[in-house]
């Protein structure tokens, strides 16, 4: 392949990538006034929400169209003056707490937050107990040798073979 063709291919490739990202941006914010909304805040809200069509990714990380639309909705609501907490609550109202990647710290959910800490504490306690047992100096067994046996050993050691 000639160097000229390589350059053309690279340029076409770059144009396709730029075009695709521009299309994504326009899909995300059909009516929101971009520029007036802090993208950091959009990211912060999107990172808390679960992508509903992929489930293992956040709305921020998911490349799906649904997640792009949800980012657009976040941007638009921020633009309309809603706070990040109000927007997160809007999604919780629609999808339930399932939509939150990190469950809220109340009621039964506390178990999720407390269990790892409790498990680590219990583990440390077990390790400490075992270490103490292993490093404790062993008490010397009390020698209770039969005097008759001791006498016999002495005799046999002293007597010539």
């Amino acid at each position: 392949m000639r160097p000229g063709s390589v350059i053309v291919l690279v340029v076409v490739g770059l144009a396709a990538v730029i075009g695709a990202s521009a299309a994504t941006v326009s899909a995300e914010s059909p009516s929101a006034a971009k520029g007036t909304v802090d993208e950091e805040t959009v990211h912060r809200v999107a990172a808390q929400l679960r992508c509903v069509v992929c489930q293992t990714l956040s709305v921020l990380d998911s490349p799906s169209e649904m997640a792009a639309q949800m980012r657009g909705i976040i941007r638009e609501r921020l633009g309309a003056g809603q706070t990040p907490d109000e927007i997160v609550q809007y999604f919780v109202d629609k999808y339930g707490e399932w939509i939150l990647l990190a469950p809220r710290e109340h009621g039964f959910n506390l178990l999720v937050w407390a269990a790892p800490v409790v498990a680590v504490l219990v583990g440390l306690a077990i390790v400490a107990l075992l270490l103490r047992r292993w490093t404790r100096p062993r008490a010397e067994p009390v020698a209770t040798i039969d005097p008759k046996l001791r006498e016999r050993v002495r005799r046999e050691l002293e007597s010539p073979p």
Partner: protein
Amino acid sequence: MWRWLIPLSVVPVLALLAYGFRVNPHEIPSPLVGRPAAPFVVRAFDGTEVSLAGLRGRVVVLNFWASWCYPACYEEAPALERAWRTYRDRGVAVVGVAIQDKPEASRKFIADFSLSFSNAPDPDGKISVDYGVYGVPETFFIDRAGRIRLKQTGGVTDELFRAEIEKLLGEPA
């Protein structure tokens, strides 16, 4: 005591696993059932304007679909059209919302199944999120007072449609 502690510690883990395996992770209860349906105003593919407020007093069946949703949406489309034809004169409205779909593909789907009820696109996903939609097909049965009474995840059958609609029509307006 120590001898029993390790075997006993398996019990809560087994209980948790037993619970986890009995739960279907795809069945997520909608918090919207029993609550007022979110208002919407859409421009249907045929150019008419459809709004929930305009349908107040009727039982509304709101169906989310997509042309790429095969086979479930393809299986339920004829059932929805049959149900619409059967019940439209008895105070029932069927509204389809095509989500994450290309307009031309949606139009072809409507034409292929000769759908005569209102169908509209949801280009920015606002109606989908307002109804807490996860995927397609999903169908919401809204009573005459404007409350969501049932969310059906997966295709709607003739039997399900008839049973739910007859129940809602039997209620005082």
